C-alpha cells in the first residue's frame, strides 16, 4: 500500500552568525549549508494498518509526512502510495489521501463548521448522496453534532481537532495522515480522538500514518511503529518486538522503614550492574529501583532486597513504552 524506499531529503539553509556583525554579513553574503533532514528512510505499510511514526523533535517526521503527502519532493529515493508517486500527479493523488496537521487547521476560521464541509465537498467533488452518508458517519464517530453550527474560531482545541479530522475524511480517503493529532489535548479528548481513529480504521480499512509524541497514542492505536532519529530509521517493527528487544526494564517500587538504605543496599556492587542497567531513586521512605531484568532476574532482586531491609509495601512493574523510547532517544541506538 505505502512504500518508502531510500527516501532522502536535503535542505539548503542560510547560516547566520550571531550578533550585529553576523546580521550585516548575512545581508550581503549569506552563507549556505546543506542539511540532511531525512536520510535513507525505508518502510512499508499495508492496507488497513495503523503505523505510528515516532522520534524526537527535529528527527524528520514531518518532512517524511510532507513527502508522502506530495508537498515536498524527495531529493532522492521514492515513495509510492497505492501505486502512485505523489509528486507525479499531485492533484489526482491527493483525492485519495486525507491530511491533518495538528498545529494548523484547514477549517474556515470565521464561519460555522458546516460551511467548511460544504466547500470541501465541492473541492473534492463528493456527490450529494455520498456527502450525506459521510456526514452522518463522521458525526457519529467524531460527535460533531454539538458544535457543527458554531463558527470555527469559537471551538475548543479538542473540538477543532475532531472537526479537522472529519474534514480530512470527507472524501473517504484510502490513507489518512495525522501529524500530531493529539497535541495539546486533555486526556479525555485524546481518548475520544483515539477511539475515533480506531473506529474509522476498523470500519473502512483506512490506512493511517500518525506521528506523535504521546506514547499512549502508540500503545493504544498502533500495532507497528517506525522510529526515526536524526533523519534515519532506528527501529521498525511491532510493539511487542520493541518491548522484548528493549523492554527488559523492570521497576521495583517499595516503601521501607529502614533508614539510610543507600548504605545497606548495594545493588550495583552485589550484582555487578553496569551504569545503564540500574538506577535507584530514593524519596523519603519511598524507593524506586529501575533495572535490566536480563542481567538480573526479578526474583533475585526481590530476594536480595527483602533480605536486607524491612519492607512495608512492594510492587514490580513492566517498564512502559515511554521508558523504552526515552532510552532509545538517549542512546541514539
Amino acid at each position, binding site marked *: 500500500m505505502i512504500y518508502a524506499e531510500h527516501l532522502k531529503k536535503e535542505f539548503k539553509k542560510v547560516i547566520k552568525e550571531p550578533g550585529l556583525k553576523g546580521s550585516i554579513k548575512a545581508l550581503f553574503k549569506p552563507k549556505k549549508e546543506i542539511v540532511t533532514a531525512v536520510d535513507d528512510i525505508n518502510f512499508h505499510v499495508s492496507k488497513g494498518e495503523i503505523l505510528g511514526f515516532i522520534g524526537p523533535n527535529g528527527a524528520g517526521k514531518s*518532512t517524511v509526512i510532507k513527502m508522502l503527502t506530495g*508537498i515536498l519532493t524527495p531529493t532522492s529515493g521514492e515513495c509510492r502510495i497505492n501505486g502512485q508517486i505523489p509528486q507525479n500527479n499531485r492533484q489526482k493523488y*491527493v483525492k485519495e489521501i486525507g491530511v491533518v496537521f495538528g498545529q*494548523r487547521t484547514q477549517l474556515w476560521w*470565521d464561519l460555522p463548521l458546516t460551511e467548511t464541509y460544504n466547500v470541501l465537498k465541492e473541492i473534492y467533488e463528493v456527490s450529494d448522496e455520498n456527502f450525506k452518508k459521510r456526514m452522518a458517519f463522521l458525526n457519529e464517530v467524531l460527535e460533531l453534532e454539538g458544535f457543527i453550527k458554531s463558527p470555527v474560531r469559537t471551538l475548543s482545541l479538542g473540538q477543532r481537532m475532531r472537526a479537522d479530522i472529519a474534514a480530512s475524511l470527507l472524501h473517504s480517503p484510502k490513507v489518512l495522515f495525522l501529524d500530531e493529532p493529539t497535541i495539546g489535548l486533555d486526556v479525555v479528548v485524546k481518548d475520544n480522538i483515539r477511539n475515533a481513529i480506531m473506529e474509522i480504521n476498523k470500519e473502512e480499512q483506512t490506512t493511517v500514518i500518525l506521528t506523535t509524541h504521546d506514547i499512549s497514542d502508540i500503545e493504544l492505536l498502533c500495532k507497528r511503529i517506525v522510529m526515526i532519529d536524526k533523519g534515519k530509521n532506528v527501529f521498525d517493527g511491532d510493539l511487542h518486538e520493541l518491548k522484548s528487544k528493549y523492554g527488559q526494564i523492570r521497576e521495583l517500587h517499595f516503601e521501607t522503614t529502614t533508614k539510610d538504605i543507600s548504605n545497606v543496599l548495594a545493588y550495583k556492587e552485589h550484582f555487578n550492574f553496569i551504569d545503564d542497567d540500574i538506577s535507584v531513586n530514593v524519596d523519603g521512605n519511598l524507593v524506586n529501583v529501575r533495572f535490566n531484568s536480563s542481567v538480573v532476574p526479578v526474583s533475585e532482586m526481590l530476594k536480595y532486597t527483602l533480605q536486607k531491609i524491612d519492607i512495608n509495601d512492594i510492587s514490580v512493574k513492566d517498564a512502559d513504552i515511554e521508558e523504552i523510547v526515552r532510552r532509545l532517544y538517549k542512546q541514539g541506538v
Partner: protein
Amino acid sequence: MKTIKRAFRMHRIFVIQELKRMMEYKGDFIVGIIGFLLGQFFNLLFIWIIFSQIPNLVGWTLEQIVFIYGFSLIPKGLDHLLFDNLWGIGHFIVRKGDFDKYLTRPINPLFHVMVEKLQIDALGELIMGIALICIVLPSLVIEWSFIKIVMILIVIPFATLIYTGIKIATAAIAFWTKRSGNITYMFYMVNDFSKYPINIYNNFVKTIITYIIPFAFTAFYPAYYILTGENPLFNIGVTVLIAIVIMSIGIFIWNRGIKAYESAGS
C-alpha cells in the same frame, strides 16, 4: 471545457463563502471600504488643490486628469477585489507554511489561492473610480461609438490581468525567499505613476512604465484612447498583448516557484 465549468463553479462557491464571512464582520468591512474611499478622496483633494492654482497641467484639464485617475481605479479595484489573496503568499502564507494546505487539495493551487478570498475593501476604489468618471463625463467631449464601447469592455479585463499577472509573478518569488510582499509592494508603487498622464514624466520613467513594468497600460493608454479615440491598435491592442505576456510570465514563475517550494519545504 469541464475544467472551466468546474473553475467557475469553484469560484462561485468561494465567493459565496466570502460573502458569508463578511456578514460576520459587517462593521469591519464597512470601515475597510470607507478607508479606501477616503484614501482616494485625499488624492483627489490634492489634484483639486493643485488645479486651483494652475489652469491646466501640461495641457491636461482637471476633468481629463480626473477621468484618467478614475479609470485607473477600475482595473486596479477589480484585481484587488477578486485576487487579493495573492498578497498573502508573499506576506505569510509561504513563510508560515500554510501553503501546504493548497498542495493537499485536488485543485490547482494558483487558482485556489487566487479565488479563495474576496477583498471587499476594493469596492471603495471601484465606487470612487466609477463615480469620478460619471462626474467628469458630462464636461468631457468624447465621441462615442459602438466600437469604442466594445473596446472598453475588452480592455478592462485585460488591464486587470496586468495587475494580476504582476502579482502572481512577484508573489511567487516568496517560494524562494519566503517573503516577497515588499517586492509586490514595490511594483504597486510604480503603479502610482500610471494614475497621471505619462507626458509629465521624463523619458526614463515613461520607458519604464510602458515597456518594463507596463502599468501605463492599466490606465493611461486605455483612458487616452477613450478620451481621444486615437490609435486603438496601440492603446488597446498592446494592452491586451501585454496582459497576455505578463500573465504567462507570472504563471511560468509561479510554476517554477512551486517546484522550488516542493523541493525546499518550509
